[in-house]
């Protein structure tokens, strides 16, 4: 009895294990395949750092403008707010069509988005997105 339930609960994780194995095989397999099959050519241009086709002109280890951090933090904030929409969307989809909770749920998420809009307006007016 105990064994059966243990196996049963572990088998929930089966798909994850399969996904993990596939991911590892895909990654390792591609590396092996390219080393075996791919053409080889060495040279100074080949050894250069690749950054979207631009020629690198200095080291990347330098000080960034503080603006970069502000933009990064703002991005993180709004990014996380988007993540909050996912659980809402899942629950909202499972509600019955004529359920009285639907307008309530919609109203709540709209209120949540409104607070984001306030935050966005504030950041904009504060000059977070200005580059001059």
């Amino acid at each position, binding site marked *: 009895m105990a064994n059966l339930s243990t196996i049963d609960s572990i088998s929930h994780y089966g798909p994850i294990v399969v996904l993990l194995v596939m991911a590892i095989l895909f990654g390792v397999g591609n590396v092996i395949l390219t080393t075996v099959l791919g053409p080889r050519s060495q040279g100074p241009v080949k050894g250069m750092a690749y950054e979207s086709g631009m020629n690198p002109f200095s080291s990347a280890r330098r000080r960034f403008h503080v603006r970069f951090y502000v933009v990064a933090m703002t991005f993180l904030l709004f990014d996380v707010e988007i993540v909050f929409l996912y659980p809402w969307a899942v629950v909202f989809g499972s509600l019955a069509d004529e359920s009285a*909770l639907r307008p309530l749920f919609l109203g709540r998420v709209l209120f949540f988005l409104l607070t984001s809009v306030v935050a966005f*307006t504030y950041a904009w007016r504060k*000059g977070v997105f200005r580059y001059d």
Partner: protein
Amino acid sequence: MTESVILEKLATLWPEIIMISGACICMVVGLSPKQAVRRSVVWITGLALAVAGLLLVAPHFGWWAGETSGGAAGLATAMFVRLSVILLGLLLWLTSWGVPDLLPATQVAEAAAAQGRPFNPSMVCRGEYFAFFLFSLTGAMLCASANDLVWLFLALELTSLPTYIMVATGRNHMAAQEAGLKYFFLGALSVAIFLYGFSLVYGATGTTVIVSTQLQPVSIAGYVAGLQGEFPPLLATGLLLSLVGLAFKIAAFPMHFYVADVYQGAATPVTALLAFVPKMAGFVSIMLLLSVIGWPLPVPVMWVLWIMAAVTMTVGNVLGLLQNNVKRVLAYSSIAHSGYLLVGIVAGPTTSAGTLGQGLAAVLFYIVVYGLATIGAFSVLGCLRVNGEEAQTYDEISGLSRRYPGLALLMLISILSLIGLPPLAGFVGKVYLFGSAISGSFIGLMVVAAINTAVSAVYYLRIIGACYFGESRIKIELVATRAGRLSAGLAAIAVLVLGFRGGWLVEATREATRSVSVVDVDTQPQVAAPDHLSSE
């Protein structure tokens, strides 16, 4: 929590909703290109506070059929705390009136705008200051109506997070930056500690609901009642960690290290806020958490609080003696007063019906009285400048009575109330508080508190001595803050009135704490331990 419960709860929160909306409006309006509009944030803040206060008392007078249920602490306690936060919040609002306008960056931006150049919103934090002010007050109010550990945690964070920023931005000085950083990091540490405590409490009881009148959902109080006096170590550890973390909010030992530096570094009106709002939130949370195990407290918890109270007041008063800076003195006095307040928490509500027997009522009364006196003292300090900087040391306020007799008198009243001299409200508060210790037979703690009160008189009297008998060597000037003086005046009047005619407030606190009572196993729902624990 089911849908209807959430909706019912939301319907009780209209004052808080008004204040949050007011804060959002301040945030946006403070950046308006029109000067008259962006200056109106002060009025919007006051309006939000006033409307919230009216909504809070409206059901009582029958103007509006509003809320009916409080949190774990009961409707009356929540009502008392919320109302006192709003009323003292109005005083703090007056004290804060000119804070963002006095910042050099604001003045530069406003001067440029006055000459017709476009207004630069990134230099001014007027809207933010008042928005964060409202957020912090709202957090303290939400603590009072909490009935869930998650809710309590969020409310406590809403109280503290805005104050970190207010400390750093309220004053143009390196010390303010330093204070803000210290406050933030130590605050984060304390949050981690009490959150860990909450998680252990949840682990021990299997629920985050604090008190419930029904069997479902189960509550922590119900679980504890079901234990019949036994006390699992996991629950005890959780509660103790929560208490230690909350000690940061109330500025008590062992989390008191930040107090002097932060109070000194912050702008004085912000310091006044720090001295009252987080303390109120912290003490209400402690009362909520301890109400689940009930009074008389189990021996280990009682001794931890006993020692915390004794050490806190001794540390505060002894270190207060060594300071030369009035703001630091008042910071250590804030620590010491937390120690006195913990005496009431240790004593708790006792079964004897006498007026002096109510520890929790005494705590509520004393915290309001302490808030009034400390806001008065800080408001007076906030009005004074020396060479454009805040007046802080004994030397700088020396001879204040000759230059500004009115302000010196307000300072005198506030300080005498902090000492606890009759006929001021501080005296009534101390009698009430120490009386509860006697009727709970905590004579030792009461003796420690009495000795500490005597010690504290030394540094309090030094402040008065400097104001009244010192030579005025340094030129001290007044900043244009009529609101600050009004706030100090109102606080002093309140302290006087409560001293002579404070009976109604004593009655109100007794009424407020009636529902938080001594352990009575019969009245609490019996709930079996959660499955995952009983199977062990």
